[in-house]
């Protein structure tokens, strides 16, 4: 989220950290995994629009529901790495905020947090897309 906020900064009017979605209890690691995969796809679109290449991730749909926290961690790490790569391309981009220990969290907490990232990526996709249209014209 820190990286995405930095990526959104050059766009005036962008909500750097959007409103967090409503807390939805009872989420499983599989739900978080699915949401993160959606974020990864969105990130790929953004990277493609920016002329950057990104890893392709193929996940067996049957395995999503049985995903474990470690799987969630893996895909989250992958997203952070890709965001860090995009952030590194930003000229004069400020470093993201320092990471801190948030304590023990439930999948529902993580799901809610990923919701913020999702909104950020939707915004970023919109801005990158419109910028590309302008440069195309």
């Amino acid at each position: 989220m820190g990286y995405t906020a930095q990526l959104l900064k050059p766009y005036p009017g962008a909500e750097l950290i959007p409103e967090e979605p409503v807390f939805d209890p009872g989420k499983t690691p599989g739900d978080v995994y699915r949401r993160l995969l959606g974020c990864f796809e969105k990130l790929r679109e953004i990277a493609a629009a920016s002329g950057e290449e990104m890893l392709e991730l193929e996940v067996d749909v049957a395995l999503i529901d049985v995903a474990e926290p470690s799987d969630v961690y893996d895909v989250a790490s992958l997203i952070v790495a890709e965001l860090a790569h995009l952030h590194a391309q930003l000229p004069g981009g400020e470093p993201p905020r320092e990471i801190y220990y948030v304590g023990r969290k439930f999948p529902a907490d993580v799901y809610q947090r990923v919701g913020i990232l999702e909104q950020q990526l939707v915004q970023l996709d919109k801005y990158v897309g419109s910028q590309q249209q302008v440069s195309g014209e």
Partner: protein
Amino acid sequence: MTSAPKPALDRQNRTAAVGTGSLRTKLLWSHLWVAAIGLLMLLVTLLVSVWMRGHSQRLATVRRPTVQNSMLVQIGVQQSLASLRGWMVLGEPKFKSERRQAWAGKIAPAMAQLESLSAHWTDPANGRRLVDLRVALIKLKEAQWWVEDVAQTPGNEPARVMFNGDIRKIHRNLAAAITPLVAIGQGRSAEDQHPSLQEALHALQVDYLRCHWALGAYVDQRAPSDRSIFDAAIKAAYGHVRAITAECEFLDREQHELSAARPAPRPNATAAPFAAIRPSQAF
């Protein structure tokens, strides 16, 4: 005889006519002047009225709303900061929603109003100020979000996280090594006893525990006296380690294994929480 007074009469009449004409002209001019002054005053009043109307209108539609919305932004910022402090200190979720309300209900609408009013501003410096204000508010909002996010998490106290994680693990290992070292020495027969070694082992145990206790107390209360106790205790513990090392030939095989398996505490590792307590850690 009859024609003699005629010129005099004519002169008299002329004089009278001239006199009458002068008065009339004077009266006419006087009235004209009064009318002209009146008209001029009317014109001035009209111009002033038009000017005042324009200014009043500008005051009512541009300046007053500008001042009002600027104040609203200021109030909103103060309110958001107050709510953030409330959340940091008390940890009640209502402060989080109040902070959001300040941004969504006060600052954002007031800024939108200022943006639309800026089209009517005559001073270009004000437009630049508005741009600066917008940038500053974006930064403030983001910074507030991060502060709010970290405030009630263990990550807000890195020293405690370090103490409860890494340091506690090191402590468990060290305590598990020192205690049997002392116990083995105590269990020896009287002729196998090495009083100075045993004394050093026992002193190491005491000073090491003092050192750990002082570190924990410092993390909890940040009293400089605890830091002094820690410094003195760790210095003494190192002294005991040196004394034990000098007499290590008197340690038996099991004690050797214990002392080799458990490395002595490194000052950097045990003092790390001191470094982790930063002056900026105010919440």
